[in-house]
């Protein structure tokens, strides 16, 4: 159900600048469906984790106040070309998605 995530990690020395774009409606539960008049239920990514070579290094918890199609930028330190970076999310319905990339030299 979930669409592919996009990830970009640019290495400078031993620091990687990471940008992730996720695909998710991030519904606040306050919006009405124009056609049916029904409230669209709360549906949002609740947590995001980033793992380096299989170990979790970053834990993020979100509310429905993060924008639709969430963007997350962060900086990894002490990394090198060849390190595996994966980012995974889990939403309030139990749906999930993940993306993995290998850090490459600039």
């Amino acid at each position, binding site marked *: 159900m979930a669409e592919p995530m996009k990830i970009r990690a640019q290495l400078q020395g031993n*620091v990687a600048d990471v*940008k992730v774009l996720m695909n998710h409606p*991030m*519904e*606040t*539960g*306050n*919006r*009405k469906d124009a056609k049916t008049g029904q409230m669209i239920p709360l549906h949002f990514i*609740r*947590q995001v*984790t*980033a793992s*380096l070579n299989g170990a*979790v*290094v*970053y*834990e*993020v*918890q*979100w*509310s*429905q*106040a*993060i*924008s*639709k199609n*969430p*963007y*997350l*930028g*962060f*900086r*990894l*330190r*002490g*990394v090198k070309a060849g390190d595996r970076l994966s980012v*995974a999310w*889990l939403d309030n*319905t*139990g*749906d*999930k998605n*993940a993306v993995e990339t290998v850090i490459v030299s600039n």
Partner: protein
Amino acid sequence: MDKMRRKVLRSFGGTAILAAGAVLLQPLEALAIDWKTAAYGAKNNADALKGLGYGDPASSADIVIKAPDIAENGSVVPLEVVSNIPGTEAIAIMVDKNPSPMVGEFIFSSHVDPYVSTRIKMGETSAVRVFVKAGGKTYTATREVKVTIGGCGG
């Protein structure tokens, strides 16, 4: 807390049966973090802060909040936060005037710089309030963002 975890695991179990492939390879424990329900359900900053388990905050000039002075679209407000406080463990973000102030919490290991870049929803002109947990203490800074068209829905 436990009830929450069981609920998350149960709902994940339902999805796993329908999903296929790589999704099943990750152990459940690696995915289900204890989402701080009390903080996210809070309707004011003080309750949210308590729900996070943060202490009484002291103002700090070492927290940098970068956001537009005026956000044309409250649904997508770009936000960058940097903590220059040594030993920063986590950054929490709230929007005072949102229906529920809590926006997110970012918890760093030594491999991740205390820097956050994301996009948030703001219902109306409000202070964006940042809390930093560092060395057993809590610090805070705010930045006012004017919102032209509110972004929380309705």
